[in-house]
């Protein structure tokens, strides 16, 4: 019976293969291309509608000198560029460095570490909105738990979200808290891919933990580390949600990043061209990151 089924499958498979090759062979190359285009048409239409047209629209809006005159004369834009560099630079690099270190801790296969790993992943699993609302509550000048603790310790209250650098600091801390687990898991996977023989060899040579990290782990992970850094930078450069929900650009529009500023121009001021202009100024940096990323992956 089983053989019969197998024979049947073989027969049908051969038949299908023959019919396809016959059909393909029967068509001349032009007709074959035509069919190819016809079947690709839905994808081409979607690509034109959702990739090419938005890019074309952005390009037409972006190539207007007036937009840049306006942007560069707005002190908030200049401040925003600085904020974005600080936010992306510090948050991404601190987060990835910590993730690299923590992945080493989580690699230990003990019950305690397994339990800790589960706890450690929680921030990643919590949706952004409740996470940020909790942080905002904690940092409230009047009622927040942080100030309650500060006052109990005799330090007086701090206006956490009422000063530019404190607010950006809070943003960076939230970013690290939220996304550290994800990148730690990535590095953990990377570490697990390093052949154990290398560590056995260094152990024979008498290498300690630091030397293992310096001469084995980091060289083996540095490609992954660079890719993760670039990826995270691209993600963070376009981060709107965290910034908008935590500070909304306040106080005094001093904590905007490019994404929130573009939103402010586009939807709060009705200036789509300015919003597009903001992204256009960030585009060379994003494209550079993507270019390096693709080269690195290849």
């Amino acid at each position, binding site marked *: 019976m089983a053989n019969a089924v197998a024979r049947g499958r073989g027969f049908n498979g051969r038949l299908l293969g023959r019919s396809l090759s016959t059909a393909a062979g029967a068509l001349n190359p032009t007709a074959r291309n035509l069919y190819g285009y016809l079947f690709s048409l839905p994808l081409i239409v979607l690509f034109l509608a959702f990739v090419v047209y938005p890019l074309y629209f952005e390009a037409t809006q972006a190539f207007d000198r007036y937009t840049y005159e306006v942007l560069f004369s707005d*002190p908030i834009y200049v401040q925003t560029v600085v904020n974005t560099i600080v936010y992306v630079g510090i948050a991404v690099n601190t987060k990835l460095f910590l993730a690299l270190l923590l992945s080493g801790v989580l690699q230990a296969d003990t019950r305690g570490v397994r339990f800790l790993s589960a706890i450690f992943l929680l921030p990643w699993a919590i949706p952004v909105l409740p996470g940020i609302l909790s942080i905002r509550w904690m940092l409230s000048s*009047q009622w927040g738990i942080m100030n309650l603790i500060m006052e109990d310790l005799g330090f007086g209250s701090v*206006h956490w979200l*009422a000063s*530019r650098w404190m607010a950006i600091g809070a943003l960076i801390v939230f970013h690290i808290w939220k996304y550290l687990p994800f990148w730690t898991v990535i590095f953990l996977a990377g570490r697990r891919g390093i052949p154990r023989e290398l560590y056995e060899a260094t152990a024979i040579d008498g290498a300690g933990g630091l030397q293992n990290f310096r001469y084995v782990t980091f060289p083996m992970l540095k490609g992954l580390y660079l890719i993760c850094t670039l990826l995270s930078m691209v993600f963070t450069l376009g981060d709107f949600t965290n910034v908008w929900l935590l500070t909304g650009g306040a106080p005094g529009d001093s904590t905007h990043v490019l994404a929130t500023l573009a939103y402010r121009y586009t939807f709060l001021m009705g200036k789509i061209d300015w919003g597009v202009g903001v992204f256009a100024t960030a585009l060379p940096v994003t494209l550079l990151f993507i270019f390096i990323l693709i080269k690195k992956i290849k």
Partner: protein
Amino acid sequence: MAHTRRDFLKTTAAAGAGALSGTLGFPMVSRAQARTVVIWWNRGYYKEEDEAMIKIAQEFEKAKNVKVDISFTIQEDLLKKIIAAIQARRVPDCAFCFYNDWEVMPNYAWQDKLAETTDVINELKPRYNEKFLQVAYVYNNVAKKRAYYGVPIEAQIMHIHYWRDLLKEVGMADEPEKIPLKWNDYWDYWKKAQDALRKKDPAKYGKLYGIGMTESTRGSDTIYNFEMALLSFGGQLLDPDGKVIADQPKNREAIVKAIAWFAELYNSGYVPPDAINWSDGDNNANFHSKSIVMTPNPSLSIPAAQFFQSPDNYFNKMATVEWPDNPGGGKASYMVAVKTILLPKDGKNTDLAKEFVRFVLEPNRFAEYIKGANGRWFPAFTDVAKDPFFAKGQAGKGGPVDYHIPLATKLYLERNVKVFDHWKSPANSQVYAENIWGKAMARTNVDKWPADKAADEAINRMKTIFTQWR
């Protein structure tokens, strides 16, 4: 029966063509059946408002034998929706959003993307409170003329709400007529209340603040607060032709004084520290939770909310008072925002939309609609404003005297009122949208700049915006 791939392709092509022709044909049939007017309306704060508007739409359908496609959206989302629709030229026939007057109308009338409404305004002119009308008289930069490009319907003005029971608790006079109205005495009164309450019960009132003054770039309340203070200090930003005069010595001096005053208020510890981050709902929330004694608010949303939640609070434990007299003497002048209906130029049924607007604004019908807002808005029409509701308020519905709505009516009718200057130039809409005065407050409150430096930065920014506007 064999079904070849070629057959399949033929069948698919035939079905596709049929579906396409069906799709194209359908709207033509539909259009022939009934005219549809598409209305985008701001969702009200109370269900009575929306219900009244739905009823009006149904009446209009019956009266005119047309279809009204009406949808309600909250104000923040509706603003974005209208902007996107006008940009994409896929617009409703009529749109009413609470942000129209500030951000949409001056901007898109300038770009010739709104239908002129002079005919509607002229018909309604005898009924209008003329003070409110200029809000829709904006400039079209394509037609190179000023005309009406909207239909103003309802207004909001600055009020100060306070907790009477908190004042009473520390033995301070709590009746509205006993609140001192001289500039310094007025603000000192709330500071005194904070000090007394904190002293009386530090555990309960240790985090209470006397003055809930929004001083952020996120809240449009900041704009009201600043412009009210500027009027009090005798300053102006634009001349009647819409030219910037903020840098003239007298006006600059008033701006510096206003900014310095806001800074003093904030830095002296009588305003909640987070007030520089507040959005428009935050002073309401702080007031409702009794973490502030008083708050300026440019609508009656706070008492209206209490009317539903706790009539005792509405009638007995809180009250509304005037903005204080000017520092130099004389009653305060009031900034008024007048909410306005728009008709996008690309609308398919503009004439029908105008009929709808006329229908909505018939006195009895409009009175029913606006009273659904429980006094939050004041009608732009004198006949509707004569409705006893605006003189007596909610009196008799839980308490003998309403300390909120009648006061607001008095401000509209008896005080000097001034509509916001966005109608003079769309560049001023951007000044509001950027909230440059909130930014100036942040400069003094956060960056610790002196008031004159913050004022000069704001004035220069305003001039740049006007120079670059096109």
